[in-house]
Structure formats: C-alpha cells, structure tokens
C-alpha cells in the first residue's frame, strides 16, 4: 500500500495537474494517478513530445499552453504515477488502481476526481464499421503520433472540435474530402440571447470566427445536413447525408464523428456522489459547491468531469479545489484560502460567460440523443435503439431494467458509450426528462480487471 497522501488526484489533464501543483505549493502531499504514459490528459495529450514534434505548429498556441501546466507540475514535487487504471474510489478517499499486472491501494485524505470528458456517443447507422472513429480520436492520433488522415476522409458533426481539428489538418498540409455540419439551423436563433454574455469572451469568439475563415478559404466542401449514415462491407466505404431534404452519397474510407463532449461521470457515480441532469449541456454531472466538494466529504471533483467548461477553466478549478482541500484539512486558514482564490475566480469569470452560447449553439439534434430503431445504441453488446424501446413497451421503467433485459451497457465499456443514449431513448419513449429517467447504476470495478490483478492487493 502506498503512503497516505493529503490528495490523491485521478487524471493528469489540466485540472488534475493544477490541483496537484497547487497542493504541493501549499506543502500538502499529493500524487497524481493517470492512465496515459505522459502528463497532459487528452487536451494536452503527449504535449511535452508533441510540442517539439512535426505537428507542433499545426496544433497551435492553445495546445502549447499545456507545456506550462505540465512544467509547473513537474517542478512542484507532487508525485506522479502514469500507466495506472483506477478501478475503484472508496468513500473514504482511498483509490484502487492497476498497472495491468497488479493492483495497488492509494490511501488519501481527499481524492480529487479529475477524469475529464469524453465525446458524446454519436449513434448513426454504420457507426460500428472499421474506419468510423471520433474526431477526438483523429486529433489524439495527430497529437500523440503525428498521424494525418489520408484518402477519402469525411468529418461529420457539430461543435468547436471539428472546426479546430479541420484547421489543424489544413495547417499541417492534409486533405479532407468534406465537412458535414450537423448543427441544427434553429440553434443559431436559440443561442442568440446568450451572445451578449459571450461577447465578454471576445478572444474565444474571434478564435471561432478565425477557424471558420480558415475552413472557408481551404476550399473544403461544407454540407449542412440533418442526418448522416455510414455504409460499407466490413469497413466504411460510403458516407450518406441528408442536406436540404435530399440524400447524397460520397465515397469515404475514414469518417470522423463528433457531437460535443460530456463529463466522465463513472467514477463519481460509482462512489455514490449525488448527480443531476444538466439540460443545457444534455448530460449528467456531479453536484458540486464552489470548492469542488461533492456530498461525500473526502471526494472532490475538478475540471470537465464536473461539467463542461473547457481546458483553461479546468486548470483554475483544479487550483481552487486544492485551495479548498488545504483549508478543510487545516493546512491554511480560510482567509488565506479566499485571498489565494480571488485572482483565480476573477480569471475563471473570463472563461465562463461564453458557455451558455456554445452549449446552445451546439446542442445536438434530437436523433443523436434518441436515434431511430435500427441504429446500434450499445456498441459492446450490439443492442439497437429499437430493442431499448421494446423494453419500455414490456415494462422497463429505466436504464437498469433495460440493461438486465437486453444487456445494453453490460459490455466492457460499462455504458460509457451508450449510457446517455439509453437514457435519451427511455426519456423520449416515456415522456419523462432524462433527469427523471436517470442513468445506469455504475459499480466497481470501473475498468476491466483480471482476478490476478485484484489478488495482488492482498500481497
């Protein structure tokens, strides 16, 4: 068993790194556990290497900022254990993790959950075919391996990430066959009232407009579509989309999908923290106070796994959570905490006003949240949306009954890529809100684990 730490942080993205850095600066003991071999999370993935690599210029200044976060962490003296999968967090704050061979226990006075976000499931016909990936996956390949799409590559979806990825590929000299923009036209109107607040985030807005300009000048065809399908024999060969009421079909050997990102809530749900439905972001998130405290005292949350706010805000949240924990553990007094927090909150206030605008502008079209019958909802168990609807007809009142009837959510990903879809389908079929329907009951182990890895705990 590892030595008791003031903070054990799960996740080495901006929130986790900043929390550990701030804690160490205040003299607290802190250790970061992370799945990846290098710090940065997904947003600053492999930044220490990539910032020197062939894709550095294309990845841009925002990515480069990750270097300063990682450097500060490296200098802070906080502990770092890469290559570990966390499979259980106890209500006491103790964290259990495995390196693939053996498990280890990390006792902590406070556990900081900073596991970030992942891409919202995009259930469309053919999305399980080889050659269909997420835009995030494509961007990870660019960051961590300098890999560029080649051949007939299409990007389909909505949100800031597809625009950013396309601009990075253009900057690196790549070629994309076309962008299928699925943002519903009505979203622009709905987002209008939030534009005034968003103007306080002028740099963000300018960045968005600049990305659109880069895309326009690149000559990459952009199709506004309200439905997308992938088709092929054994792998994706064609993409179909409905633009202006008419279907078009194009040759395609790589299709990247994206409909926004959602908080990774499996850890906090398995611990038993209270969660609620965020209707603006169309996702569940843990209920937190201004110091990232959940309703379970030793469990704290920092960054996008507590609600989507973006990388810069996540870094500030990480520092604020560490300040709160330091005060709660009696290592600094409340006046010191509040004094140190003031500039962080002021800066946070500069990053948040645009969220309502972005969330509303990029709200996914209804068929992403509740897809047609023939579409696979649960990839692991190959369960269709129609089968989930059928469970409702025979009496399932929520995701957990549906799961025991037809195994949706019971595969190795444990509902990470179907949970929101199953909730969405049942909500639509029963006329209830997703918040009323709820989510799968998440149980440990959070990641697949062999009995051998588990048994190593007893040694």
């Amino acid at each position, binding site marked *: 068993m590892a030595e008791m730490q003031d903070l054990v942080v799960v996740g080495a993205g901006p929130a986790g790194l900043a929390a550990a850095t701030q804690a160490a600066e205040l003299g607290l003991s802190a250790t970061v556990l992370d799945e990846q*071999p290098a710090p940065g999370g997904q947003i600053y993935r492999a930044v220490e290497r990539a910032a020197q690599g062939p894709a550095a210029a294309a990845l841009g200044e925002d990515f480069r900022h990750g270097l300063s976060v990682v450097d500060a962490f490296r200098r802070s003296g906080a502990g770092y254990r890469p290559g570990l*999968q966390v499979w259980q967090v106890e209500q006491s704050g103790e964290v259990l993790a495995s390196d693939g061979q053996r498990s280890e226990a990390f006792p902590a006075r406070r556990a900081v959950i900073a596991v970030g976000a992942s891409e919202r499931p995009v259930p469309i016909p053919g999305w399980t075919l080889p050659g269909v990936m997420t835009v*995030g996956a494509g961007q990870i390949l660019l960051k961590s*391996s300098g890999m*560029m799409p080649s051949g007939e590559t299409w990007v389909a979806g909505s949100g800031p990430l597809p625009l950013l990825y396309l601009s990075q590929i253009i900057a690196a000299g790549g070629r994309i066959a076309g962008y299928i923009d699925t943002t519903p036209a009505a979203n622009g109107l709905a987002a209008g009232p939030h534009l005034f607040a968003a103007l306080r985030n002028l740099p963000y807005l300018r960045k968005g407009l600049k990305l659109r300009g880069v895309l326009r000048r690149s000559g990459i065809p952009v199709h506004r579509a309200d439905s997308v399908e992938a088709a092929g024999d054994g792998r994706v060969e064609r993409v179909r989309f409905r633009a202006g009421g008419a279907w078009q079909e194009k040759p395609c050997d790589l299709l990247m999908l994206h409909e926004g990102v959602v908080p990774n809530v499996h850890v906090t749900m398995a611990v038993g923290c209270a969660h609620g439905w965020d209707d603006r972001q169309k996702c569940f998130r843990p209920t937190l106070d201004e110091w990232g405290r959940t309703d379970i005292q030793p469990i704290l949350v920092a960054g996008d796994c507590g609600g989507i706010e973006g990388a810069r805000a996540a870094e500030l949240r990480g520092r604020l959570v560490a300040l709160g924990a330091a005060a709660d553990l009696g290592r600094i007094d409340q006046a010191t905490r509040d004094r140190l927090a003031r500039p962080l909150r002021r800066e946070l206030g500069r990053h948040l006003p645009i969220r309502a605008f972005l969330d509303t502008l990029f709200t996914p079209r209804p068929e992403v949240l509740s897809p047609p019958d023939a579409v696979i909802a649960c990839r692991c168990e190959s369960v269709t949306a129609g089968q989930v609807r059928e469970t409702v007809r025979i009496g399932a009142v929520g995701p957990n009954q549906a799961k025991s009837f037809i195994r949706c959510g019971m595969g190795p990903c444990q509902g990470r890529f179907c949970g929101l879809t199953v909730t969405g389908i049942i909500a639509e079929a029963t006329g209830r809100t997703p918040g009323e329907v709820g989510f799968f009951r998440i149980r440990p182990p959070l990641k697949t684990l062999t009995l051998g890895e588990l048994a190593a705990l007893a040694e």
Partner: protein
Amino acid sequence: MFRKLPDPAAPTVTVTIDGRAHTVAAHETAASAALLAGMGATRRSPVTGEPRAPFCMMGVCYECLMVIDDVPSRQACLVTVADGMRIDRQPGARALDFGGEDA
C-alpha cells in the same frame, strides 16, 4: 487511412502486426501502429462476429481490444509499443486458459 508526418528524429522499434514485421516510432501505441499498418478490423465482436476497429483512442470505448504478446483483450490504444511486440487481431471473446490440453 492514415499517414505519418515525417519525424526522422523519433526512435523506432520493430513490431509484428498481424504476422508481418513493421518498423514504427517508439512512442506509437499498439492501436496507432495497427491503424498505420492499414489493419482495418482489429477484432470481431464477441456478440455478432462483426468487424470492429479502434474508435475513441482514449481508453473509453474498448473497441480496440487486441491480442498483444499472446495476452488477449488488451486495450491497444493504452499499450505503448516495444521492440519485438506481437500485435494480433482478436477473433471474438477472450478464451479462458485453464492450463489443460483443451484450453
């Protein structure tokens, strides 16, 4: 499907992907190496037998489960390559090795 930006300074290792030797960057993951090798399907669904391939590249979706150095069901996107590593397609559900002749 994918190509690499030239990176002559990156150290390399030799791995065997689907029975053939490939020289790849030492920082590659088993999944990115398989994609670069043009492997297409990296496993078959244990439920339907359909071909599947890496999808999220961040350890969430479990679509990239492969047989790596004879150990099945490893998340290929979380495994960094090493010299001599064998990366193979996973045919379906993981077989349980009970150590007997019928294993």
